[in-house]
């Protein structure tokens, strides 16, 4: 892979539009970008998966659906039984991603293989507005990167600037845009008041090359992070999922070193660590979609929540090593574990938050300062 690889902007092969959103400004704005594309109008996107048929070469992520978000946009992260959760809120602005990582759990979660952009963003801002005004004493860390990559569809949706501007005016929320892509140009000149955290998911180079599909190279992600830093943004990095692979120590240590030689530690809001995990029911789908990937050959065993995870000592080893490398560069950057038990925290970091509420408050502090 080219050292500075940046993926092409997503070009949908087909575009479907749910009739209910066809007149919305965002829909029109998106369609204007594809003047030569045939648009197929459908009545109800919910009926779509049942009738949608894939051709043999159409496994995943070629088509775009512009639809209405019927449920709430904002959801509290469901967390996992017996694990500490950071009590994050997901803002579902889109579902699906064009980057195609082998470990992406969207392969199992999403019921259709399209990339959906929800175009009723007026409803979304009203919902956000209500939530944040009705709970002025609660602090919300919100992210758009749960069901999609936060930046990969940005050239099409152009939602980022609206979100950044909206959040910059709120005292009780921040938004985190988490990505493996680099489409951040329109965000750089905004008045964000450091209420947006621009975050990149990183991995060892070998994993990026073998298992992160069309994602931007590490070099390109770090270059984008530097640009974001120059534009005054708070940054975050996520090593999630960490993959237990040959020479992982060399690979991960190298990335930690590159972060701290590119970014000033005090601009980093947090770094998260998580090891490969996914519902066991998705194993077959993910393997079938990525037959050449070796990540499924790790010592992944079923946990209490029926998710496959690395055998616990392996996770502890990965986290402990990462923690010590990060600490060798910064004693203050907040490092947390995603979906792990207190015990794993304790073993890996030598300390653990008492509960999810404490973890939330520690993370809130990172952006409230």
């Amino acid at each position, binding site marked *: 892979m080219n050292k500075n690889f940046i993926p092409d902007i997503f070009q949908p092969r087909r575009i479907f539009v749910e009739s209910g959103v066809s007149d919305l400004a965002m829909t029109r704005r998106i369609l204007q970008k594809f003047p030569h594309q045939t648009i197929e109008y459908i009545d109800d996107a919910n009926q779509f998966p049942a009738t949608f*048929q*894939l051709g043999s070469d159409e496994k995943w992520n070629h088509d775009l659906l512009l639809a209405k978000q019927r449920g709430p946009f904002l959801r509290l992260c469901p967390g996992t039984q017996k694990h500490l959760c950071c009590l994050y809120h997901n803002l579902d602005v889109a579902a699906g991603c064009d980057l195609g990582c082998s470990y992406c759990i969207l392969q199992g979660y999403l019921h259709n293989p399209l990339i959906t952009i929800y175009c009723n963003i007026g409803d979304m801002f009203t919902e956000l507005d209500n939530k944040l005004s009705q709970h002025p004493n609660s602090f919300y860390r919100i992210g758009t990167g749960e069901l999609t990559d936060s930046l990969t569809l940005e050239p099409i949706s152009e939602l980022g600037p609206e979100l950044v501007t909206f959040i910059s005016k709120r005292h009780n929320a921040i938004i985190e845009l988490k990505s493996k892509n680099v489409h951040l140009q329109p965000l750089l000149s905004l008045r964000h008041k450091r209420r947006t955290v621009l975050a990149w998911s990183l991995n060892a180079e070998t994993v990026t090359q073998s298992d992160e599909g069309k994602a931007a190279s590490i070099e390109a992600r770090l270059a984008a992070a530097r640009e974001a830093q120059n534009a005054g943004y708070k940054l975050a990095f996520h090593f999630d999922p960490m993959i237990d692979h040959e020479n992982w120590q060399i690979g991960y240590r190298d990335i930690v070193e590159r972060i701290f030689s590119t970014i000033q530690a005090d601009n980093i809001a947090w770094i998260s660590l998580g090891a490969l995990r996914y519902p066991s029911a998705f194993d077959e789908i993910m393997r079938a979609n990525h037959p050449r990937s070796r990540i499924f050959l790790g010592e992944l*065993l079923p946990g209490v929540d029926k998710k496959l995870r690395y*055998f*616990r*000592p392996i996770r502890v080893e990965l986290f402990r090593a990462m923690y010590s490398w990060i600490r060798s560069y910064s004693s203050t950057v907040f490092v947390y574990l995603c979906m792990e038990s207190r015990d794993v925290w304790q073993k890996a970091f030598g300390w653990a938050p008492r509960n999810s509420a404490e973890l939330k408050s520690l993370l809130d502090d990172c952006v409230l300062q």
Partner: protein
Amino acid sequence: MIKTQFAFVPVKFDEIDDADHTYYIPSCRNIKPLLTSIEQIGLLNPPILQPNNSGQFRIVCGFRRVRVLRELGMTTKLSAFVFDSVEPASEILLHALLDNLTHRDFNPVELSYILQRLQEFGLTREKILADFLPILGFGRNPKVFELYEGIAHLSHDWQKAIIDDRVPLDLLHTIQTLDDLDSAVMIKVFDTLRLGKNRQREFLQLLVDVAQIQHLTIAQLTAEQWFTQILTEPSWTFSQKTEHLKELLWEKRYPRYITVKNQYEEVLKASQMPPGLDLHHPPYFETNEFSLNIRFSSLSELLQKLDHLEMMIKNGYIQKMIDLV
């Protein structure tokens, strides 16, 4: 809707080109009952034919009937339905399918050949899904298409196992990713160990994974001495062989977990726990929660067991177990 017409006419037997497989759907069914029936009461259901460009007739329906007639030496003349068009057409294939459906269901292997044939006729996947699968009784599910599509490429042994319902169909996705040799080895292992469907799933995944981990093919892995020795051990039952193989495959698939599990079992063994005192480690050592079960039928028995437990604590056995996780 079939637009071509056909007539019921006499045809000379040697004008039938049964090597023309344009509409042939391979069948693994036993031909004996048909042979007996034709021998005893003659041909009740005439074949359907279509003229081809070389002045002969290709068979649309009735390959097995024509074969039986040949075997029985009844090869002079017969009456058959003959289409008026010469060009092969998917409508005529559909006719053949419908004719077959009047007296039997298609098994998965036949369905797979049908899908293959329909595609050879230039029909798109979408068209087959929309127009043909429902007629064949399989709804419009693209997953069904994907699943059955590859069966035609499997070996005879696999196809036989599928027809006999000895292997679960969902296994086929994985089987279809194997090369011919590995695929042949797999069915041999299944047959040799007489694995039930659930065990087949587990074994297949273990073998595929371990082979990949060790950068071997399944054929190479199963040719290793430890494997062949267990497989051919005359004094073991099928289930003993299966258990031994599974144990060794787990060691290779999950080496760190098995190491800890073995260490735990060693400590447990050293502690000489009496029967009726059962200590269980957390599943896969994922949490810290051990569980203890004490069975007793008298106060003295309970006290004895509690004493043993106390000894285990004092001598550090319990701590050793806890430290393992």
